């Protein structure tokens, strides 16, 4: 039996008065690896908000979410001021309860109850479009992330989006992390590849297949759709862009007849291209910055096959990062540095099929996360815990998300094939 349940059983049932201002943290302490039960109480008049928040809390993989049926609009079975039945929710296995209430100013209040202590732990109120459609979904997701932060002290990933390449139209699309809100981002009739987010979520970069055969890197502002070709990338062959965490630099690979080298440019002033890797007849590509912006992980063929290397952001101190001498020697590609800086995710061929691996930098230990089908192109969520990747396990290539703590995998459904996912940072901040 879980220790926190024992604690609940020996507690006398107290009828503590609800104190709306009481934000003292008592009772449950969040422990990674243990998922407390969390009940989302019925929320009359907030059907969409209730459904989206409950799903976001489930997809955070930090709770055992216990869904209670929403009351129908007419039967009047809401809580409507009656005291919370703490004991009943505890019998469902819950340690926490979330209540969603409409506020008169158009906001939605989320109240977080500690069921063992039988008291309100804290509450938060955020403005949002309660219909939860279109851009309004992001406001609801932010409320879910606030609940996760208040309950666990950890960042949520509800208010994030993924970019993906749609094979049907060769455009980049975006989708909310819960799989809703799928929309095209790049213009119709233009073939592109390799989407990358800026850290603030306001811009993306990608390689365009220009009609003249060149492969420019294009910068697109999401709010306006304004597209800019980065200097020196027109008329040349450029692939795999990646933004620095501070948004000042963009690193990419340029293909030339002497090999493929990494370059960085100042993406604020659109100037000052600098070559980072030397060496003729080697290929260096697929870069990603460390979260502090000081190092870059990338793929190089300098020793033969494709393997994972790292270097300083100025190109110095280049090293083989992920060892390939422990029996697993397959080509390794598509590295991505975790937001906490501790782990590199990448894919490596095992028996002819790529699989998702992580490499823990401090312990220098490798872990294989997938084995079913072909799995590739991992991208870290901003919580440093979830990874999006592409798999053909269900037939055509589709996007999946794995929780590296529990191993739980869910699919993000898209109508066509989905490839090359890129996970944003948290999008937008709640009201300060």
């Amino acid at each position, binding site marked *: 039996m879980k220790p926190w349940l024992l604690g609940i059983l020996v507690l006398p049932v107290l009828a503590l008065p609800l104190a709306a201002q009481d934000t003292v943290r008592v009772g449950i302490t969040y422990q990674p690896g243990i998922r407390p039960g969390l009940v989302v109480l019925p929320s009359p008049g907030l059907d969409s908000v209730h459904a989206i928040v409950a799903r976001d809390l489930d997809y955070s993989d930090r709770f055992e979410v216990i869904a209670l049926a929403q009351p129908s609009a007419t039967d009047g079975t809401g809580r409507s001021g009656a005291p919370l039945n703490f004991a009943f929710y505890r019998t469902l296995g819950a340690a926490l309860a979330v209540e969603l209430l409409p506020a008169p100013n158009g906001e939605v209040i989320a109240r977080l109850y500690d069921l063992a202590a039988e008291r309100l732990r804290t509450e938060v109120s955020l403005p949002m479009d309660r219909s939860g459609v279109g851009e309004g979904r992001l406001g609801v997701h932010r409320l879910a992330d606030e609940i996760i932060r208040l309950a666990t002290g950890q960042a949520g990933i509800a208010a994030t989006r993924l970019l993906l390449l749609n094979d049907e139209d060769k455009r980049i699309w975006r989708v909310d992390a819960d799989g809703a809100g799928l929309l095209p981002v790049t213009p119709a*009739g233009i073939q592109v590849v390799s989407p990358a987010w800026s850290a603030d979520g306001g811009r993306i970069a990608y390689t365009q297949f220009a009609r003249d055969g060149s*492969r420019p890197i294009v910068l697109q502002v999401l709010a306006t759709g304004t597209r800019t070709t980065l200097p020196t990338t027109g008329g040349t062959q450029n692939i795999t862009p990646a933004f620095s965490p501070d948004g000042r630099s963009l690193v990419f690979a340029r293909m030339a007849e002497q090999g*493929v080298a990494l370059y960085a440019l100042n993406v604020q002033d659109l100037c000052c291209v600098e070559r980072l890797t030397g060496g003729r007849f080697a290929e260096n590509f697929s870069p990603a910055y460390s979260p502090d912006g000081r190092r870059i992980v990338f793929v190089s063929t300098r020793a033969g096959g494709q393997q994972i290397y790292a270097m300083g952001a100025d190109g110095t101190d280049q090293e083989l990062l992920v060892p390939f001498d422990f029996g697993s020697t397959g080509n390794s590609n598509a590295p991505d540095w975790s937001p906490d800086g501790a782990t590199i995710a990448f894919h490596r061929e095992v028996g002819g099929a790529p699989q998702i691996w992580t490499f823990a930098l401090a312990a220098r230990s490798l872990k294989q996360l997938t084995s079913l089908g072909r799995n590739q192109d991992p991208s870290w969520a901003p919580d440093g815990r979830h990874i999006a990747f592409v798999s053909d396990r269900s037939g055509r290539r589709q996007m999946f998300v794995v929780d590296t703590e529990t191993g739980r995998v869910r699919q993000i459904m898209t109508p066509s094939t989905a490839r090359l996912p890129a996970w944003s940072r948290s999008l937008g901040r709640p009201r300060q």
Partner: protein
Amino acid sequence: MRRRLGFVPCALLALAAAGCGKKATPEVAPLPRDSAMAPPSRPGTPPGNPGPGGPGGGAEAGRAALLADLGNVIHFDYDQDAIKAEDRPILDRKAAILKANPTLRIRISGHADERGSDEYNLVLGNKRALAAKNYLMAQGVDAARIDITSFGEERPVDSGSNEAAWAKNRRDEFEIIAGGDRLVPPK
């Protein structure tokens, strides 16, 4: 044997409507896949169809044959960029035509099958295009007359997931970018 993939779409159109050049496929198509492969066709000169024996018909037929030879696709083994022995005559013919037509410029685009890493396949396509360029240069064609580019696995000719489809997709395509209006055959 020679008129392979490069001209299939146009040839099919010519058979169906006898007007490939005149009523070209609309350029508004989201992905005009074939425009990258087909030579720039002049109005009223459907390649491979010299017309009803009018004056100059023989010359047009000769030009169509040269265009077909320039457009012939070559193929590669899995994860390789080496020119296969069977493709050397195809490249030798292109080199001869290029040398006989000094204003002719071409672009070679390298392609990969869907296996292998998506982003590495962009690199592999570049290597395949470069392999053909190096071969043509070794035959005496000036490097400045040959552009190269890569589509990686992003523009397959066969979307199947089997060896037959993959074999077709691992290829170099050849496109005329200048000087293709008047062509003389190699001596």
